[in-house]
């Protein structure tokens, strides 16, 4: 089979771009129908993505089109093109699929917002950028889209810009991810310098690395710098602080950008440039350790958060840590697999949380409760998502987490233990969240009787719930289809019953404890928290990371900024004012002279003449020139 649809892969990102341009041009006029534009564009994308994906199932070599020279530095052209391989065909389906569902959901969620069309425009731009990022055939092109998704994230977090928190969160997200982006940029520059023919395309880089044309030290450095970029984008410790704050944006955005797609871009980047990481054991260890630490760290923070979306945000950070850990232990397939399943169930959880917020208008779990009877679909789908995230057999999260844990155990028992403990905490906070929101009685008066969300919102929930259940079966210990397909080589995946049993046990323990404390209430959560004392306080305050950054980085930088501001105000502005004042003074004097008195003019001319003659005489007298 020839690559018929792969040649048309450019349509996938093009459709949302057109939607964005249309909404930009006539959004105000089609305001109420802008959702239809967004849905239609992502539907086209999704259909083509599925066609490309199905075609890729027939294997074959990757199709790449990179004939267009975008920039020329000296004699070195930088191409702009796209490449379709198995990894990004899968990513295309995930991104366009989730985007389609989110567009559909937003049609209900954002109803009545005065900037309805702007919202869909931004979402379309984001979808375009993300699809472009996935299709990019060289690193510089990827970097362009990498920054574009960052901009979209910024715009959408700050969508409700009248809220000061949203503004602050948008700025924080932009600045913190920028730190990581700098790392990625340096890595690209190093590769540009080192790669043969200065060709940054992935194929060329992979060949160069495979043939050992780049020194090992440089490779380690490059790998770590690329990882720094991934750390910023994927919210890994220590740059994770922006992701929980990003929850100030509309909930569908949290589902699309900050759970399913953009934050997974870091994982995708590492997976895409994995040939560099494979050459450097040190870089792999860094990735694995940072990932494992983030997984555990964020999971513990999630336990004590009270905002429904923030719990999910920390959960995202933690799960991304899992993926990074999987990459670090060399299990590329497991990481991509977890990325896939996570995209489905985390988008589901966010959308379900959005459904709750839409119905009640509150998002503090202390004020929610008893919604299970009022919102059956939301409660059921959220429950399925929570179980999938907790990693309970046989839902998708179980299979992907199992794949990661098996690989981790294979590498080092330490990673496995960290993963297991994190899995326990994950199960616990999801149980806590579920029971607090949907079980029991309302803990505060709702403004009006909560009701189930409209069908346009619940249908995506149901679809995602179905995917959260079944998407795990593409890669199980008994069916290694995804692994074979992604790597092109049959993988010998053996069922490790210890891992399966232990991970299920951890999940069940977590859920059980959550049920005891928040469902049945035979264990008083307050008392447990009080018993923990400082530990609870530490976790509740997110390990004071924000405070630490504020004291160590933000304050000194701000002080420096104030200092420079003073210098600007008094030194630079002073010089400018001096120049302006001088011109003004001369102007005043000139005005005074321009008085129409002919005799005055004559006098001035006379003085000028005398001055000239004095100068001439002086020159003659002192023998100058």
């Amino acid at each position, binding site marked *: 089979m020839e690559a018929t649809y792969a040649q048309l892969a450019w349509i996938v990102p093009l459709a949302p771009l057109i939607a964005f341009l249309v909404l930009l041009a006539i959004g105000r006029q089609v305001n109420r129908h802008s959702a239809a534009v967004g849905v239609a564009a992502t539907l086209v994308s999704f259909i083509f993505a599925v066609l490309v994906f199905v075609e890729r199932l027939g294997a074959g070599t990757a199709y790449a089109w990179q004939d267009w020279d975008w920039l020329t530095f000296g004699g070195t052209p930088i191409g702009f093109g796209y490449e379709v391989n198995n990894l990004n065909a899968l990513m295309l389906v995930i991104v366009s699929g989730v985007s389609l569902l989110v567009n559909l959901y937003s049609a209900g969620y954002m109803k009545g917002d005065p900037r309805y069309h702007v919202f869909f425009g931004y979402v379309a731009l984001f979808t375009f950028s993300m699809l472009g990022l996935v299709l990019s055939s060289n690193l510089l092109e990827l970097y362009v889209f990498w920054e574009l998704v960052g901009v979209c994230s910024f715009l959408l977090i700050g969508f409700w810009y009248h809220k000061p928190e949203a503004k602050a969160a948008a700025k924080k997200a932009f600045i913190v991810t920028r730190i990581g982006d700098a790392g990625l940029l340096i890595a690209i520059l190093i590769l540009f310098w080192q790669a043969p023919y200065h060709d940054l395309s992935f194929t060329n880089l992979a060949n160069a690395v495979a043939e050992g044309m780049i020194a090992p030290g440089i490779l380690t450095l490059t790998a770590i710098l690329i990882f720094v970029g991934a750390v910023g984008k994927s919210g890994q410790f220590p740059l994770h602080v922006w992701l929980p704050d990003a929850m100030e944006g509309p909930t569908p955005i949290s589902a699309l950008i900050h759970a399913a797609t953009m934050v997974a871009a870091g994982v995708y980047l590492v997976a895409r440039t994995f040939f560099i990481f494979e050459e450097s054991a040190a870089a792999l260890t860094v990735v694995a350790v940072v990932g494992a630490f983030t997984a555990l760290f964020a999971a513990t923070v999630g336990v004590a958060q009270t905002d429904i979306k923030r719990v999910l945000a920390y959960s995202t950070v933690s799960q991304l840590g899992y993926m990074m850990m999987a990459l670090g232990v060399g299990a590329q397939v497991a990481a991509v697999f977890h990325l896939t399943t996570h995209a489905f169930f985390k988008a589901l959880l966010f959308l379900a949380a959005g459904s709750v917020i839409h119905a009640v208008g509150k998002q503090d779990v202390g004020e929610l409760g008893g919604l299970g009877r009022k919102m059956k679909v939301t409660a059921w789908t959220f429950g399925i998502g929570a179980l999938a995230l907790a990693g309970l057999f046989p839902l998708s999260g179980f299979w992907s987490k199992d794949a990661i844990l098996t690989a981790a155990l294979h590498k080092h028992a330490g990673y496995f233990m960290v993963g297991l403990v994190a899995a326990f905490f994950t199960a616990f906070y999801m149980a806590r969240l579920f029971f607090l929101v949907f079980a029991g009685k309302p803990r505060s008066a709702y403004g009006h009787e909560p009701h189930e969300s409209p069908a346009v919102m619940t249908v995506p929930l149901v679809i995602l719930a179905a995917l959260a259940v079944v998407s795990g079966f593409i890669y199980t210990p008994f069916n290694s289809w995804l692994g074979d397909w992604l790597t092109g080589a049959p993988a010998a995946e053996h069922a490790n019953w210890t891992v399966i049993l232990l991970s299920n046990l951890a999940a069940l323990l977590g859920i059980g404890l959550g049920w005891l404390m928040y469902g049945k209430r035979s264990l008083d959560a307050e008392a447990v928290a009080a018993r923990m004392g400082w530990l609870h306080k530490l976790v509740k305050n997110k390990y004071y990371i924000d405070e630490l950054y504020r004291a160590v980085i933000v304050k000194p930088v701000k002080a420096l900024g104030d200092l420079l501001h003073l210098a600007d105000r008094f030194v630079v502005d002073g010089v400018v004012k001096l120049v302006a004042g001088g011109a003004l003074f001369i102007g005043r004097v000139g005005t005074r002279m*321009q*008085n*129409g*008195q*002919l*005799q005055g*003019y*004559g*006098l001035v001319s*006379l003085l000028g003449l005398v001055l000239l003659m004095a100068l001439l005489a002086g020159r003659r007298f002192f023998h100058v020139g």
Partner: protein
Amino acid sequence: MDNILPSYLILGAILFCIGLYGALSKKNAIIVLLSIELMLNASNLNFVAFAKYGPAPALSGQIFSLFTITVAAAEAAVGVAILLALFRNRGTSDVVEMDHLKH
């Protein structure tokens, strides 16, 4: 005989300075006009002095001063006519009031 030229030149310079002072400081337009005539005649004096006692004595300097006197007469006539017209128009001959150039 040789030393007489500087005396003429000093006299011309004094006359010129008096004329210049008058032209720049007097308020009455007629006096200003007179002062300008004074400056002209100072230069005439220089012409004649150089023509007679200069390094290359020639008749052309004296002819030149004759021309200047003629032209000055014409100029004075025109100047007085303008002054008359101005006086009719504005009712004054004070040069301080004549600041039309400003506007």
